[in-house]
């Protein structure tokens, strides 16, 4: 495909329509668009990509050993960011044109190709986000016209998107690509080699099959988990089934026994129906016997209570008399205490009198006056003494028992004193016992009467036995009913649980999935083998073509004889000895990388122009020249470079390579213009933000950041 015409409107610094006519008639494939930085080279570069693919990405990088595109560029949005949106904002501000547009006209195999992509605001004003835009693509190839998706398919038939990076080369990110190519990177350029094979059906087929296989494997894993759960449930269900069977068997036995007992009960009840009088007699006997039983129990209780209390009964009796005796002894104790007190008092008086008699001096001991009749006084004292001694003797002889003896007797008598209330409680317990006994004896009497009554023609003992049996059976039936109900409930619960566990069934898993997975695996192996063979063949082709290019471009082809792409798809420079060159220069590595990219492109057999932004980066002058010499000499590819002023000088390049250049342009701002466009005068005068031609007075504003495309003259 050869590019003939490019027109861009309102992209980057290109406000309004700007056109590029590519001279294709000269047979020269070199094209150059020169400019200083910021004048729109990269915008132009991106405009071409956008026209072809509908999307532009920021610079790519190598991530985890693989090439990865940068973020997608927006068409409109935040203009304060760098890089900003692609659409020219001034076009709207000044001309109210919310639209950007690229038209490419090319030719291939004699057919004209026209590609027109436009992004237009759908909101009527300057759109804020890309969703506010309508984007349309129109592609015409010969007579065939296609829109949008269909048009995109046509474009990509000519210019495969997956090979885009071999045709749109960004010198800025080339160094990263160098790293990818160099030995040591996992995977190397394997992905690139695969993409140039152009076997999308095979690669996508592998990818699709791997996805299918992964999905099947997930399903199988999920089913395996399910199966394990089901097996566990089945095992539990089986145990449960055994339990249920045992319970049912037990229930059947119990129900059989119940029915049998009930049947016998019914028979017996029917049999006893004709003996209603006898039955009522028997029932009365039963009632009386039960009553007797209850009263016997009550009597035993009261008898026991009486027995426990009666141990103090003798003391109650003893105390009837001993109480009086205790009173007497107690009085004796009081008397002894009183006597002792009196004796003590008398003794003290006697002692005093004795002292007085002994110490008598004829003087009063109180007033110390001489006693008139001293002898009479002494005689009177002696008489008093004798009297007191007589009283003492009388009191002493009155007392029969000593105090100790009295206390001992009181202690002994106290032991015979019953606890308080004993008599009352004993009498009450005796009365209770008597009452219970009376009741029991009454019942016994009534019972005996009832027993003695008998019934004519009826063997009451046999009837009684039968009636008792009936009662027992009734009790048994009553006991059996809840047991049977419990069994039924239990079985029901376990059956519900059994159902919850899936009834012990293990659903047949889809074994076909395993087979399908296995078949896909085999198919994948075959496809991967095939792809590997193609890839390896392509690798060798790339290696061969890249080596040819390398020898043409490198400045020392005798010493650096080619490029090796090893089994791991890593590239290296080969020396004259056939061995890998260790530590090549960065320029050599850059050249190697460009040659590999060129080889990849050529092996892909896609015929399309090559766009190279900032092509001279990292290359020395010799290599830069060699690069242009080689690429611009190619017969089957247009090679369009976008150098800035530091890479390739305009005049120098045009002079040196004019024979290889079809067309060349310079992108400028008004500030770059050093020559008057009107008269050709080359020394304008700067007056503030305006330049003025001194010859023709032409003026131009140098504050405007608006790119102008200038066609450069080249050797025809």
């Amino acid at each position, binding site marked *: 495909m050869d590019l003939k015409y490019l027109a861009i409107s309102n992209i980057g610094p290109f406000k309004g329509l700007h056109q590029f006519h590519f001279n294709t008639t000269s047979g020269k494939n070199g094209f150059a668009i020169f400019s200083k930085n910021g004048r729109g080279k990269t915008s132009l570069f991106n405009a071409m990509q956008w026209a072809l693919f509908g999307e532009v990405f920021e610079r790519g990088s190598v991530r985890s050993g693989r090439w990865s595109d940068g973020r997608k560029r927006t068409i409109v949005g935040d203009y304060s960011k760098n890089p900003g949106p692609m659409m020219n904002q001034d076009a709207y501000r000044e001309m109210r044109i919310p639209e950007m547009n690229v038209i490419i006209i090319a030719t291939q195999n004699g057919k004209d190709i026209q590609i027109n992509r436009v992004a237009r605001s759908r909101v009527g004003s300057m759109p804020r986000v890309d969703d506010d835009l309508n984007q349309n693509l129109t592609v015409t190839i010969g007579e065939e016209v296609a829109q949008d998706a269909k048009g995109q398919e046509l474009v990509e038939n000519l210019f495969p998107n997956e090979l885009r990076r071999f045709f749109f080369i960004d010198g800025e990110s080339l160094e990263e690509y160098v790293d990818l190519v160099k030995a040591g990177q996992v995977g190397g350029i394997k992905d690139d080699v695969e993409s140039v094979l152009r076997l999308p059906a095979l690669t996508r087929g592998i990818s699709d099959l791997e996805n299918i296989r992964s999905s099947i494997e997930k399903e199988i894993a999920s089913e395996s988990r399910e199966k394990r759960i089901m097996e566990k449930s089945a095992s539990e269900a089986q145990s449960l089934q055994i339990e249920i069977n045992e319970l049912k068997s037990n229930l059947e036995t119990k129900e059989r026994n119940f029915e049998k007992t009930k049947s016998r009960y019914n028979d017996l009840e029917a049999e006893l129906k004709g003996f209603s009088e006898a039955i009522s007699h028997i029932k009365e006997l039963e009632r009386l016997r039960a009553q007797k039983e209850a009263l016997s129990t009550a*009597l035993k209780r009261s008898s*026991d209570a009486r*027995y426990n209390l*009666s141990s103090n*009964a*003798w*003391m109650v009796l003893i105390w009837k008399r001993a109480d009086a005796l205790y009173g007497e002894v107690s009085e004796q104790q009081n008397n002894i205490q009183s006597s002792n007190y009196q004796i003590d008092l008398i003794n003290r008086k006697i002692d005093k009198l004795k002292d007085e008699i002994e110490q008598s001096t004829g003087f009063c001991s109180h007033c110390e006056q001489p006693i008139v009749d001293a002898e009479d006084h002494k005689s009177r004292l002696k008489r008093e003494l004798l009297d007191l001694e007589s009283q003492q003797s009388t009191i002493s002889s009155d007392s029969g028992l000593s105090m100790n003896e009295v206390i001992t007797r009181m202690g002994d008598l106290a032991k015979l004193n019953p606890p308080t209330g004993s008599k009352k409680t004993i*009498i009450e317990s*005796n009365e209770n016992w008597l009452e219970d006994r009376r009741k029991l004896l009454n019942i016994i009497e009534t019972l005996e009467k009832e027993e003695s009554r008998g019934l004519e023609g009826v063997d009451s003992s046999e009837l009684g036995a039968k009636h008792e049996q009936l009662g027992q059976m009734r009790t048994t039936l009553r006991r059996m009913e809840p047991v049977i109900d419990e069994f039924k409930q239990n079985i029901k619960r376990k059956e519900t649980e059994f159902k919850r566990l899936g009834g012990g069934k293990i659903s047949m898993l889809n074994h076909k999935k395993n087979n399908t997975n296995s078949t896909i695996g085999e198919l994948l192996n075959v496809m991967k083998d095939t792809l590997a063979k193609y890839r390896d063949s392509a690798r060798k082709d790339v290696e061969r073509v890249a080596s040819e290019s390398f020898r043409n471009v490198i400045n020392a082809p005798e010493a650096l004889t080619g490029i090796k792409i090893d089994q791991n798809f890593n590239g290296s420079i080969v020396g004259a000895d056939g061995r890998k060159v260790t530590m090549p220069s960065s320029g050599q590595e850059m050249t190697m990388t460009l040659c590999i990219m060129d080889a990849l492109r050529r092996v892909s057999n896609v015929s399309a122009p090559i766009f190279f932004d900032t092509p001279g980066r990292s290359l020395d002058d010799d290599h830069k020249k060699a690069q242009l010499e080689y690429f611009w000499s190619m017969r089957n590819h247009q090679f369009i470079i976008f150098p800035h002023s530091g890479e390739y000088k305009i005049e120098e390049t045009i002079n040196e390579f004019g024979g290889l250049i079809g067309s060349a342009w310079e992108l400028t701002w008004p500030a770059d213009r050093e020559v008057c466009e009107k008269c050709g005068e080359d020394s304008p005068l700067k007056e503030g933000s305006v330049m003025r031609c001194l010859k023709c007075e032409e003026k131009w504003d140098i504050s405007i950041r608006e790119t102008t495309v200038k066609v450069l003259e080249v050797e025809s």
Partner: protein
Amino acid sequence: MSELIIGSVSVPQGSHKLLTNLVYDKNKSEEDRPFSAIVEAFRFAFALGYASNQRGKREGKAETVAPRQFVVSDYEVLFREICIEEGISLGALCSDFAQGGCEIIKAHLESGGTVLELLE
């Protein structure tokens, strides 16, 4: 006799039988058997005789009552003077009172009463 003689206690066979019939039997709750052992029945009879101041005449073959369970010296405080005065042993006096009590019990039971009613 100035010294107190302790002696032993006994009752005639008839009274002994009477007392035996007053001993608790768990299977005969309806019968008047309030005492836990024969010695307790004897003690009740003795106390009853003393309270009623009724001594019985003991005739015929005697049945002794276990001395370790009926310690006559416990009642010395009541009977010392009487025993010394009458020249009989403490055991004999207790036995006489017991016999007196048995006679009262017998008469009461025969009249349809219960033994513990004699407390009143």
